C-alpha cells in the first residue's frame, strides 16, 4: 500500500487540524519542516469535522481546509462531515 500525505502551513489553525488528524488516524506520521507540517499515513487518511470542531472549540467548515493547505497526495473525497485522502489500489 502507498502512502497518502497532506501538508499544512504551520500556524495556529493548522495546529488544531493536525491534532484532529492524529486523533482520527492513530498511526499517522507527523513531520515538521520549516513553515510547514507534513502528515503521512499508509493507504488512507481522514479529517473529521466533528473532531476538528472539538479541538478548535468552534464550528469548522471542511472547506476551510483550503486556507491552510499546501499540498496533498491521494484521491480526494470531501463532503460536509469529512475529508478523505485515499489510494485505492
Amino acid at each position, binding site marked *: 500500500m*502507498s*502512502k*497518502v*500525505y497532506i*501538508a499544512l*502551513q504551520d500556524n495556529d489553525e493548522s495546529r488544531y487540524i493536525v491534532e484532529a488528524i492524529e486523533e482520527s488516524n492513530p498511526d499517522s506520521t507527523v513531520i515538521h*519542516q*520549516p*513553515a*510547514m507540517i507534513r502528515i503521512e499515513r499508509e493507504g488512507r487518511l481522514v479529517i473529521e469535522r466533528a473532531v476538528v470542531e472539538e479541538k478548535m472549540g468552534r464550528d469548522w467548515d*471542511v*472547506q*476551510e481546509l*483550503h*486556507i*491552510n*493547505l*499546501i*499540498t*496533498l*497526495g*491521494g*484521491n*480526494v*473525497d*470531501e*463532503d*460536509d462531515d469529512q475529508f478523505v485522502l485515499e*489510494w*485505492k*489500489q
Partner: protein
Amino acid sequence: MAAKKLNIKDKYRLLTRDLDWDFSYEDRKQAFPYEEFEGIKITDWNKWEDPFRLTMDSYWKYQAEKEKKLYAIFDAFSQNNGHLNVVDSRYVNALKLFLTGVSPLEYQAYQGFAHVGRQFSGVGARVACQMQSLDELRHVQTQIHAMSHYNKFFDGFQEFSHMHDRVWYLSVPRSFFCDARSAGPFEFMVAIGFSFEYVLTNLLFVPFMSGAAHNGDMATVTFGFSAQSDEARHMTLGLEVIKFLLEQHEDNVPIVQKWIDKWFWRGTRLLTIVAMMMDYMLPNKVMSWKEAWEVYFEEAGGALFKDLARYGIRMPKYAETIEKEKEHISHQAWWTFYTHGHAAGFHTWIPSDKELDWLSAQYPDTFDKYYRPLWELAKEQEAKGERFYTSGLPQLCQTCQIPMLFTEMDNPNQNSMRDSVFEDERYHFCSDGCKDIFDEEPEKYVQSWLPVHQIFQGNCGGPGVEDVLSDYYKMNVGVDNMDIKGSPDEKRWNEWKGIA
C-alpha cells in the same frame, strides 16, 4: 422559518451542473470545435467528478480570506524592511530567477486554463478550469507584488517580463508553456493539469518555499504557500482529468500514455533550474534536490502511477534515466550558469567550503568524483584574479531549449548529444527523451525560437554579446550580471549590515 442550508453535494450540483444548457438551434460540435481532433473520445461528460465540490460563492469567500492574510504579511514585510532579514545577498538571486522564469508561467497558465475552460463541452470541467484560471492570475499578481519590494533594493528585477520573452535560459520555461498551450485542450490538461501540477510543481513550491522560510524570506514563503493552497485543488483536478479520460474510452489510454511520456520528460528537464536553485542558491539548506526528488517524484509519483496501473497506465518513459539524473543535474546546471555568469540576469558564485562539504555529503556517489574538482579549479582561477567566463554561446536542444549541458548518465564525462534529420535539415537534442518528442511532431518543433540561433542570425541586435545583453535583453551590464563578488548588490548589502 429559516431556509434550510444546502449540503455540499446539492450546492455543487445546483451551482455547476445546473448552469449548463442544451443547444437547440446551434450545433454543439461547432460551439466546442477543439474537442475531437486529438482523438480523445468522451462518451458522457456527466461522469465528471469534482471531489472538492467547490462552488463559485465558496471560491470567492476562501480566496478573499487567503488574499487578506497574504497582503497583511506583505505590508508587514515591507514596513519592517524584511529584505534585511534574508540570510545574505546571494539568496536574492534565486528570487530573480523565480520572477523572470516562473512568475510569467503563472500568467501563461492563466491564459491556458481560460482557453480550455471555454473549450470543454462538459460543465464540471469548465467550472474547475475557470477557477484554476483565476487562481493562476492571482499567483502572478501576488508574486509581482511580493518581489516589487526586492526590486527597490536589489538589481536584476526591473525587466522580468521583457526578459522572459527573450533571454536564452528563460526560453526554456517560456517554450514549455507555449508548447502546452499550442496543443489541443486535452493534451494541455495532461501536460499542465496532470504532469506539471500533480507531481512537478510540488518540487518547486513545497521544498523550495520551505527553504525560503529557512533563509529568512517571509514574503516568498507566504506567496508560495498561498499559491500552493490553490495548488492542492489543481492537483486534484489534474488527477480527475486523467481518471476521467481513462474511464471514458479504452482508445484514450495510448494517447494519454504518450502525453504522459512527453510531459514528464519535458517537466523533468524544466525542473533542472529548480534543482540548481535548491542545491546552490539557497544558502541555508533544507534538503538536497536529490532528497526532494525522492520524496515528491519517486515516492509520491510512484504511488500515483501504482494507482493508475489499473487503467493500463505505466510509469513515464525514461523513468530510469530520470532516477540517475537526480545525482547530477543541479551540479551540471550551476556550473553552466557560473561559466556563463556574464550573460545571466543574476549573480553567480563559487559555493563556500562549507557548502562544498554539504554537497559532498549529500551526493556521496557523484560530487567528489565529478563536480568538486571543477569548483576547486574555479577557486584557484579566482585566487589568481582569473575568474573564468566562457566566450562562446552554447548549442541548444531543439526541444527543451536547454544548452547541451547534460551528460550521459552511464558516463558522466561524456556530453549527451542526439540528432535527427527532417526535410534535409539536421536538428540537435540533449537526450533520447527530447529527440523522441521532436520525432513525434517535427513540424511543430522546427519552429522553435532558439535564442542562440536568433542571435547568430542577427535578430537580437549586436554585433557583440554585450550589445545583445544591454540593448535586446535590457540587462544592466556590469550591474545585474557577473559574479556576486564585487557586485553593487554585495556592496549595498555589506553597507546595510556594517560588514567591512
